[in-house]
């Protein structure tokens, strides 16, 4: 079932990004991009990363894409430029992009036996015993005193919140300062007149 969902959402994500790449109107590009963002959010959910999935929908598909659409409509471009014909620059760009794909896929394929399965550790808590479901669906039941050894579910919002406010608290403060600086900078830049 998870495999089926992965391929469904993967097709949606790739189709959305290809539509973003080839559509002539910037509004259509942005709307295709929303589809890609939502598909990636669903992929996060298939990975049991619920917090990141929700943040993806809120921040990317919500805030950032609305900002893009707002700017596109503010600029009010009348003519949608025609996708121009073959040039050597475009051919070189295409070859370069395909070379990047080949490089990345080679890197993935060479390491394929090293990686564990992303859903290897799913802790199912029973009343007084803990069952660990392995990647092939095998179930190992652990008595309660052993249950402390089981790694905590890394996907929970609680784990992320604890890590964010303890080990990464300083980084969180820096990001807050960055967002404030970006807000002020965006306002100043939008008012500035370049000569």
């Amino acid at each position, binding site marked *: 079932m998870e495999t089926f969902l992965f391929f469904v959402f993967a097709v949606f994500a790739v189709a959305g990004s290809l539509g973003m790449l080839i559509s002539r109107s910037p509004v259509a*590009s942005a709307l295709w991009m929303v589809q890609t963002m939502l598909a990636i959010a669903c992929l996060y959910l298939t990975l049991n990363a619920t917090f990141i999935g929700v943040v993806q929908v809120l921040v990317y598909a919500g805030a950032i894409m609305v900002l893009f659409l707002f700017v596109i409509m503010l*600029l009010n471009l009348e003519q949608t430029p025609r996708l121009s014909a073959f040039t050597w620059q475009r051919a070189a760009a295409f070859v370069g992009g395909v070379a990047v794909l080949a490089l990345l896929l080679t890197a993935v394929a060479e390491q394929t036996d090293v990686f564990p399965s992303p859903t290897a*550790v799913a802790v199912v808590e029973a009343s007084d015993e803990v069952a660990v479901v392995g990647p092939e669906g095998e179930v190992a039941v652990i008595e309660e005193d052993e249950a402390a050894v089981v790694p905590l579910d890394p996907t929970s919002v609680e784990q992320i919140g604890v890590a964010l406010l303890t080990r990464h608290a300083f980084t969180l403060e820096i990001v807050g300062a*960055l967002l404030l600086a*970006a807000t002020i900078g965006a306002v100043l830049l939008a008012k500035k007149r370049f000569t």
Partner: protein
Amino acid sequence: MDLTWYLSLSAVLFTIGVLGVLLRRNVIVVFLSIELMLNAVNLTLVAFSQAFGDVDGQILVFFVMSVAAAEAAVGLAIVIAMFRNKLTINVDELRLFRG
């Protein structure tokens, strides 16, 4: 579900983002392609985070999203400022740093 599939999908999405930056001349579509590349890397980070049972990957994704939001705000402000002066968003016609 194999981690390799997630990494391969991420590679494909990243490549489409690279192609968008290289092929398109509309600066807003170039921006969207950069966001797509960030998303592809985020997918890799979440997949690794789940695979190794380590929450730090998702923390990193959280920070990447924050930086992406800041980048989009500043970048789109620059696009607006340039469009008001040059009346174009074609990257071939924008040569602000060329004097």
